């Protein structure tokens, strides 16, 4: 059985297109090859970074199946490294939208990784990505809300959350400082609205024509 290529030999800034072609080789490599674990780690984080949670789940199943095939009779298939175990929990927390758990586990994992390692770099990117995506959600879902509720989505303390939101134009409520109010968003320009309407009218005419013919 051939050994998997050293992960440190991969490009520093990895993309999915760098990682996907290597999967068949990882499936054939020895299960106790540390480079294989690191490869799967990077691949899973990259998929989560691309919001491809479904594919990350399937990759986890493929990884488990490959390990069962390779290590049958010699090793417990569930005996994966601690880091892989953590990434499974991170994936589960994103799947169930348990962001408190996500940020907690991610913080613990980052503390255990060498600062300049590719794993630490990609996990930091993932944390930032989830925070940004959650802020986008919070900004369209909340007119006003409890600071503690929003802090869960951002993975920050209440004070840090307030600073973060204030930079984005949010303000604390006069009635209750632990509640924040979203900034008023700009409305669509009349010209843009007119363009949308014109486009919709033209599509409607096309549909009517197709129905008649």
């Amino acid at each position, binding site marked *: 059985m051939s050994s998997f290529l050293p992960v440190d030999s991969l490009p520093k800034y990895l993309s999915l297109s760098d990682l996907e072609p290597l999967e068949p080789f990882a499936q054939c490599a020895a299960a106790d090859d540390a480079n294989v674990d690191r490869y799967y780690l990077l691949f899973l984080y990259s998929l989560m970074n691309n919001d491809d949670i479904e594919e990350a789940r399937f990759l986890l199943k493929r990884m488990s*199946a490959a390990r069962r095939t390779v290590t049958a009779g010699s090793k417990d298939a569930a005996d994966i490294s601690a880091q892989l175990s953590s990434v499974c929990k991170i994936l589960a927390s994103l799947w169930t939208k348990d962001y408190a758990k996500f940020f907690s586990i991610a913080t613990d994992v980052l503390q255990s990784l060498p600062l300049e390692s590719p794993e630490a770099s990609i996990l930091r990117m993932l944390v930032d990505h989830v925070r940004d995506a959650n802020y986008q959600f919070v900004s369209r879902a909340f007119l006003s809300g409890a600071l503690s509720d929003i802090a869960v989505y951002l993975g920050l303390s209440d004070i840090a959350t307030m600073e973060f939101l204030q930079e984005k134009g949010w303000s604390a409520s006069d009635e209750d400082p632990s509640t924040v109010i979203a900034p008023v968003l700009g409305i669509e320009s009349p010209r843009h609205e007119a363009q949308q309407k014109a486009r919709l009218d033209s599509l409607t005419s096309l*549909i009517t024509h197709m129905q008649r013919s």
Partner: protein
Amino acid sequence: MNPQLSFLTVLESVDFDGTEDAVALALKERVLPIIQANATTISSGEGLLNVNITGTLPETSSSNGSHSKDGTKEGTASGTTDAEISLVPKYMIAKDDQEAILTKTDPARVSALWILALTAKYGNQTADISEFVSNANRLLDNVSGAQAKLVPEHYRALLYMIASAADALDNPNLLLRPLLNAALSFSPEHDTLSPAHALFLIQALKAKQYKLALQLLKYDVDKFDSAYATAYQDHLRFHYYGAMVLIGMKQYEKAIEYLSIVLCAPGFPCSMVQIEALKKAILLQLILYGKHSLKLPRMANDFSSHSYRVFARPYDHFAIAFENGDPTVLKLVWNQINTIFSADGNYGLGLLALTAFRKQRIQSLRKTFITVPMEYIESKDVDILENGPTTKAFVLAMIQDGDLKAKISQKSSTSPIIVVFQDGSITSSHLDALEAKLDAVRQLNEKIAIADREVGQSREYLSRKLQSASAPAGFHGRGGGLEDLEGYDDSMGMMEL
């Protein structure tokens, strides 16, 4: 004359720089006759290739619900496991020719010869699997669809040998990408069903390679020719397993389209694949639309509808309870029949249906209210299995996933949380999607017009038209299921599975 020398010599005279079809024609007219002349004819019963495919229905639940059942199902639980399939090509090429082809020719240029050589060399032996895999990989990475059509039975046999090798090694990823290439290269527009289509999807499902499978499903397959060794079952299975991939990737609307194609297939009596398709279609309809319909698509075979009602009865009961909206009744029905869902591999879809029930109760509040306190939503919210998130977390998740257009407002920590429902505004992305859909419909209309002209001019259609014109009254009343499009041929001997 040395036969081996003559076939290789003739091969040298073929212009491989021509078009794919021209090369295929040259091989068919000049090279294949020489090889066939040296070949041994196999009589029926000698069984050159007996390939056993089991566990043909991987479950979908592992990709969706929290309940996880991995791997494929053995046996006949879903009734679609294949028995031993005897794949007997008409002839087996001579051993010398096998070696000459595999060592002296390029599979990219002479795919047809490689197909013949591989089926002959590895067909009925416990040969070196790794050598077979290596050679098959070389072939499928470069296979010519036009040449594969010259030797359809051998091509089909070879593909099943590959699937068998993957099962023997317990590695469904084996040659998965080459199988995909084989399916795609069968026709330039990727619209012709090949023996590789269904087989690739089965292996992709086993390997949990759903994203890879989507690369095949992005093309509509609407050409089917039994001359290419494709069978009625290939059509059923391709669309059924395609639906399973789409369900795994949460493309439910397209999955329902694929299942409808399976349900409309004109087989008699109905296949178990069609019954499984109906079960999934019912659950998907509940998830997407909140209601079901055992009313089959118009083109579906009336003879099958009775079978559907019998076999899909538990699903019908579940759907009626769902539609009635009484959570107590739904919970009772679920407790009674969830083991049936599990046995059918639909437990995950059942869980999704229960989640959809919860969502649709909350969404229905929009019809009555503009704003509503979270407490009121809590009073209406029902978690059938009582293991889901809280109402507040569930509503926020719905907003995040786009299942509910609403905003949250809470003026202070002591005041109630108010949910403010929003109107759905039309955005550029909606218009882009609508345009893309209209374009797809326009292309489909063109294909239907072409197919309609071809069928209308075919001898079979014209002769049946003449027959029905002179038939006694009441002919069209038989079964009540025959529509104007008489591509339905009773003499085909409808498949029983």
